[in-house]
């Protein structure tokens, strides 16, 4: 009951976005943003729903959803780490940081760990070059990181739930 009610509520937010743009096909990207914001990712059911509501073929929606890096078709883990791979971060040692995270937490870039605890993503540039190298841990930017600092912080982030 509770789950159904909350699902309804989330659906309403998506509906509101579509209504704001008069259910126009042009609103597709805005609507997908809205779905991802409230559901965390773009699931099949919602994509079909959007397809019906905006009268855009599902194939076209899939094309748009996979074209843009911001959209994800897979659910995210409990925690996310977004490592910036912008130029400034790259020349200041991102490759070493990336392999440290991969080795310590057995998760590949762009994937979610099997136990669903951690998603490791890479970003083209988060625009925090003044703080390079930088990582976004659960929405919070951490700057001037080293492999040791990152491993420590992600470790604590995951452990907090246990």
């Amino acid at each position, binding site marked *: 009951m509770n789950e159904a009610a909350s699902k309804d509520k989330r659906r309403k937010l998506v509906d509101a976005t579509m209504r704001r743009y008069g259910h126009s096909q042009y609103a597709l990207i805005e609507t997908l943003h809205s779905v991802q914001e409230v559901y965390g990712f773009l699931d099949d059911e919602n994509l079909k729903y959007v397809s019906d509501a905006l009268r855009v073929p599902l194939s076209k929606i899939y094309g748009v959803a996979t*074209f843009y890096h*911001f959209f994800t078709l897979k659910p995210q883990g409990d925690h996310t780490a977004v490592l910036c791979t912008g130029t400034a971060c790259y020349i200041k040692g991102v490759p070493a940081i990336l392999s440290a995270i991969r080795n310590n937490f057995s998760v590949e870039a762009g994937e979610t760990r099997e136990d669903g605890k951690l998603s490791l993503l890479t970003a*083209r540039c*988060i*625009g925090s070059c003044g703080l390079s190298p930088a990582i976004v841990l659960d929405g919070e930017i951490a*700057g001037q990181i080293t492999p040791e600092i990152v491993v420590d912080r992600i470790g604590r982030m995951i452990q907090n739930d246990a």
Partner: protein
Amino acid sequence: MTPEEFKKIGETHQKKREAFKYNINVCTAAACVSLQSEKVKDELASQVKEQGKKESCRISGTGCLGLCASGPLVTINNGQALYGGVKPGDAADIVKSIDKKPVKRLEIPADMPFFARQTKIALEHCGNTDPEVLGDYLALEGYEALYNCLTTMQPVEVIDTMVKSGLRGRGGGGYPVGLKWSTVHKAVGTKKFVICNADEGDPGAFMDRSMLESDPHSIVEGMAIAGYAVGATHGYVYIRGEYPLAIKRLKAAIKQAERQGFLGKNICGTPFSFDVEIRLGAGAFVCGEETALIASIEGKRGTPRPRPPYPAQYGLWGFPTLINNVETFANISPIVRKGADYYASIGTERSKGTKVFALAGSINNTGLIEVPMGITLREIVFEIGGGIIGGKKFKAVQTGGPSGGCIPDEYLDMKVDYESLAQVGSIMGSGGMIVMDETSCMVDVAKYFMDFCRSESCGKCAPCRVGTAQMYNLLNLISEGKATMHDMELLEELCDVVRNTSLCGLGQTAANPVLSTIRFFRDEYLAHIKDKKCPAGVCVIEHKEEAVL
């Protein structure tokens, strides 16, 4: 609203500010926020209360102060004292010392070259206003330029001002703004649009983000003036979804402007109507290209189309559309207010005015700077930037992101403008400037950018889709020490093909990082190919022969 009315709002605001002896501003742009400047701000406020200085001290947030390397930054009375690296625990000392000597351990000298050498026009309000308060903007002649345009100038006169100012598009291409505006003005259409390109996709660039976070009203005002000049009634800001704080502040600014009648129907009581809407980008570098950006606003995959027709004639939904970058719009209101002649007096013969750069990489003073065109790279890197971290040796400065090139030390005394950067195989770009030291391998850097272009290529045209992937493979072979001189020749040939046959700017410029590194750092390529060595020690090269011995 009449100008008297909004001047009054500004003045009341100013008076409110001046009623306090000490205005303590805390930088609340993204870089400082990520270093907990919000906590610093809260702590300062509670310290002011605790120490009973509520009558004399006022705490407010402010836009980017520029020196991101030393964040979070706190300034008192706009520069009377400047503190860097402030932690919440330092708040007590700062408030205690407010009417005495500044806190030594946190102080940053305000006359350091980083601040003294800059000329601020597009960033004029960054760091001295609260980006979330309209009154602050009005107190600094905000929206006066718009009002003057609407009431005293014809659209052609506004365009004429832009032509005279010599302003060129700041998104990277450097197309003359006045010319673009006049093309859209002359284009025939029942509707016209103005688009602000805030899809800052270059890795290593954060100018647009900082400007939107620090002074959103100046962008809104610039767009409205552009709308009046070209005859548009509707504007879009296409902004990266990855910039939540900038989106939030821009949204707030649009709402405030609508409420006070600076946007919407009959702006300032004139017949001119203009509104601005936000469209979120979704992380595709190619959407910085104008036709791809338009496709994205229309809700489609962001793929470019051949030009002509140019968006100025056939743009959003087929209507004439003006597209300018964030920094370009930030320059509009200062130009109208201070005059085209003032703007044209700064800079070089063909590149007028100032340029905002995002300094990053192996440099001491990373951050946001605005300098007059024609300044030398040496001044930027060694005076403003404070030199290389750890006293290492300078190797190259990279401008223009994945479309630009690496400039070596022999060109450090070159003047920075559109033409001279193009001459050395780079581009002005949107303003990202990454400094590299001796520990960076140029082959690796070229490979990094090609990896970027390869994955960001939209796939519509074959030269870019296939060419960037092949160039990446060749660069990979070189960096692994498995390439021959024949591969090197092939790489250079491919660069030529991709540059000349790609559909849009992404492919046409994708070869720049490779060509410029081959041109200036050929010896590094040869070391990888012939000696199977990476001089900087970045690339991992397996030595099979040695293992056998």
